[in-house]
């Protein structure tokens, strides 16, 4: 917080980008991970759903911290995007997109 120089427009855009990435990217990763955990965790399926849901907020918090800790916005975006893609792939393998999944 010391020696505050006037931030440039690029700095501001980078911060805004991180905020947006943290909010939407963080939530998306958490939602995908929760759905995946609910489908693949062992034990009764209701238990898997409960466990996945409980973990979801920690996952989101971790993703958000990562977005702000990454060296550049681009790096944060790429890693988060890849994670989301992997999760989508795993969900597809777990059959989440087959119509009428589960129930």
């Amino acid at each position, binding site marked *: *917080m010391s020696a505050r120089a006037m931030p440039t427009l690029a700095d501001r855009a980078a911060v805004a980008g991180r905020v947006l990435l943290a909010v939407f990217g963080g939530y998306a990763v*958490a*939602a*995908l991970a*929760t*759905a*995946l*955990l*609910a*489908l693949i965790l062992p*034990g*009764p*399926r*209701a*238990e*898997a*759903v*409960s*466990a*996945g*849901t*409980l973990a*979801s*907020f*920690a996952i*989101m*918090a971790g993703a*958000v*911290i990562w977005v*702000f*800790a990454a060296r550049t916005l681009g790096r944060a975006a790429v890693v988060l995007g890849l994670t989301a893609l992997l999760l989508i792939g795993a*969900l597809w393998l777990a059959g*989440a997109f087959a119509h*009428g*999944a*589960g*129930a």
Partner: protein
Amino acid sequence: MAWLHTWSGLVVGWVLFAIFVTGTASYYRTDISHWMRPELSATALDPAAAATRAGAFLRRTMPDAAGWSIKLPSAETPAVEVYWWPHLDGPFHRALLDPATGEPARVRDTRGGDFLYRFHFELSLPPIWGRWIVSACAMVLLIALISGIVTHRRIFADFFTFRRDRSAQRGWLDAHNVVGVLALPFHLMIVYTGLVTLSATLMPWGVKAVYGDDVLRYYAEAGLATPGAAPAGGPGTPLPLGAIVARAAAAGGEVPEVMLVTQPGDAGATVTAYFEEPHGLAHLHPQIAYAADTGTEIARVGEAGAATRTGAVMAGLHEAHFAAAPLRLLFFLCGAMGAAAVASGLVLWTVARAPKGADPAGFGLRLVRFLNLGTIAGLPVGLAAYLLANRLLPDGLEARADWEVRAFFAAWAAAALAASLYPRQRAWALALAVPGCAFLAIPLVDAVLVGQQRFLAFDAAMGAVGVTLGLGSRLAARRKPAAARPATASLSRTVEA
């Protein structure tokens, strides 16, 4: 990470302060409700007869409802609280019935402690909006806590550091660290468990992935609810509710807390008896479902597994229903420290950016100062006004409960606006003196208008809040230089209930 902590904390700080204060007050929600309904006093009760009368009232009021809920009278709350709703997504109507007559109780119209409780997670906005906003603030707080911990490499040493007289900024930083770190386990627990209590709204994707839209099935399989019954079509001939209460009391070993009637106008109507949570941390109510027409048992709630039970324990920790008086007081103090951590953080932001010498304060700084005064000193004025309005508004006033809520917001807004007009040097002293006087007025007004012995403790607590705010005001007045030391200690008590 320091800037993340600073700015994320600032952006949601004012809402968080209100969430902490009203949530902390909600630990004493039933006490507040009792105080606000002085007409109700404990009497000998027959819960079964009261349930039958309440059922008759509801059948007259909305026979084709999607559901009714009847909270049976107890020694603690001697009235019957009923809700009814035409659809699962509301609107939810509510009435307080006299258990002896089954008619609306002759008691002043008020929302009692429930207003503060709901404000805590809905902010008096449409529920969905309120919950998402509160949850977003909670997530930001979680991030601020994590980044705050990362910021502190010397967290243990900070524990014992309070450089009160070094400089204003040091003092505020240390105050922020002390209340933040001292209750850190509580802060982390309360924010995470708070998110978990709203997880059905926030994070439905696990349920969606496995159960599709059949949420009720998840609840049934997880051991959170009894399975629902399909409507039979056509009207039924239900037993009097009292008969089912008697059966449930025999089967469950105690009088149930709440009776929930699903599809009361249908032949397939079910009545679910909810029992008090058994001793322990988990927020899991035993339930037995009965057919409304024959009174035969349909289902019992299953045993919750480890993960579901963990979630229930989290909800239980958040609400602290399990806590007896001493532990509840500890929770209350921790909540107050949460409010103080938020407040001291907000003030610290302005102190750290105070212009040197005669430089004018920029717009941002003035805005934050205004919001700080308006929230930290304004909200207690609103709380005091809410309680005072309960005593002062005439009983017969149309929509009286709404007027109490209006008094809360009007007083808060007026206090905030007034605070913006105070001279800067004396702003905090004045802004804290106003709620201090308002809280001191509560026991006096209560003594004159109601004057019941059982409210002595509550009135004393209100007086204590008033005195604490007054002390804070004096402390702020004494520190003239930077005018930057309105006692944090006082903030930690502004919330008393």
